[in-house]
C-alpha cells in the first residue's frame, strides 16, 4: 500500500466534491494514468470528474507531467482540467 496526497481544482474539484484528500493505493499503480483509472473505480463522483480521462491534467509536486509518468515518491499529486488563465 502507498499513501498519496491528492489535490483537485476547478470542475474536477467540484465533481469529486472535495479539494484534497489522502488515499491508500493498492499495489500495481505505477503511473499517473494508473492512478486515474483506479480513482474511477471509487464511486460515481470520481467517474463523473474523470470521465474524459485524456483531458485531465496531472501535476506531481507542482510540476506538469504526462499520464505515463511514474508516481512513486510523489509528495502531492494534483488533478485538474485544461487551464484557462491569462
Amino acid at each position, binding site marked *: 500500500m502507498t499513501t498519496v496526497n491528492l*489535490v483537485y*481544482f*476547478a*470542475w474536477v474539484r467540484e465533481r469529486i466534491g472535495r479539494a484534497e484528500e489522502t488515499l491508500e493505493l493498492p499495489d500495481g499503480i505505477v503511473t499517473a494514468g494508473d492512478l486515474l483509472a483506479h480513482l474511477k473505480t471509487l464511486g460515481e463522483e470520481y467517474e463523473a470528474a474523470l470521465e474524459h480521462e485524456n483531458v485531465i491534467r496531472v*501535476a506531481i509536486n*507542482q*510540476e*506538469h507531467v504526462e499520464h505515463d509518468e511514474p508516481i512513486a515518491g510523489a509528495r502531492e499529486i*494534483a488533478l*485538474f*482540467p*485544461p*487551464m*484557462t*488563465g*491569462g
Partner: protein
Amino acid sequence: MAGVPVTVRVQREDFDLAAEVQALSAGRHDIGAVVTFSGLCRDEAGALSALELEHYPGMAEAEITRICEEAATRFGLQAVSAIHRFGKILPGENIVLVVTASPHRQAAFNGANFIMDFLKTSAPFWKKEHAADGIARGWVSAKDEDDSARDRWSKN
C-alpha cells in the same frame, strides 16, 4: 540567463501598471525597451457580471516563474515582471500583467507574447463565469487557438 531579475506575484488585489514599470526600470540605464501587456475582464456584451479565478497556490507562482525565466533566456530580456490576480474580478478590472525589458524593442515584444501564450496554457488558473442575470455560466473551456498560439513558438 542568470541574474536577470524576474518578479512574479499571484495576488487577489489589483496592480498599478505605471508602478510596476517604474519598479522594473528604476536606476537602470541599460534598458532601451519596455513592453507591458495587461489582460482585463470583458463583460461579453453585458452577459457577464464577473469572473471567478481559481488557482493552484505554489504551483501558479512556480509555473509563471519557469515561463518568465525561459523567455528571459530565449529572448535575452533584461528584466521581467508578471502578476496574475485570483478571486472575483469584475468587467473592466485587471486580470494579468506582463512587463518585459530589453535593449531593443523586438525582444521585449516577443518575450511578452511568448510569456502570455505559455501562461494561458500552462499556468494553473481556471476561470468561472458569473452571468449578469444571476444564472451560473460555468467554467470557461480551454481554446484550441490558445494551444496553437503556444505551439507556434516551437516551430522554428
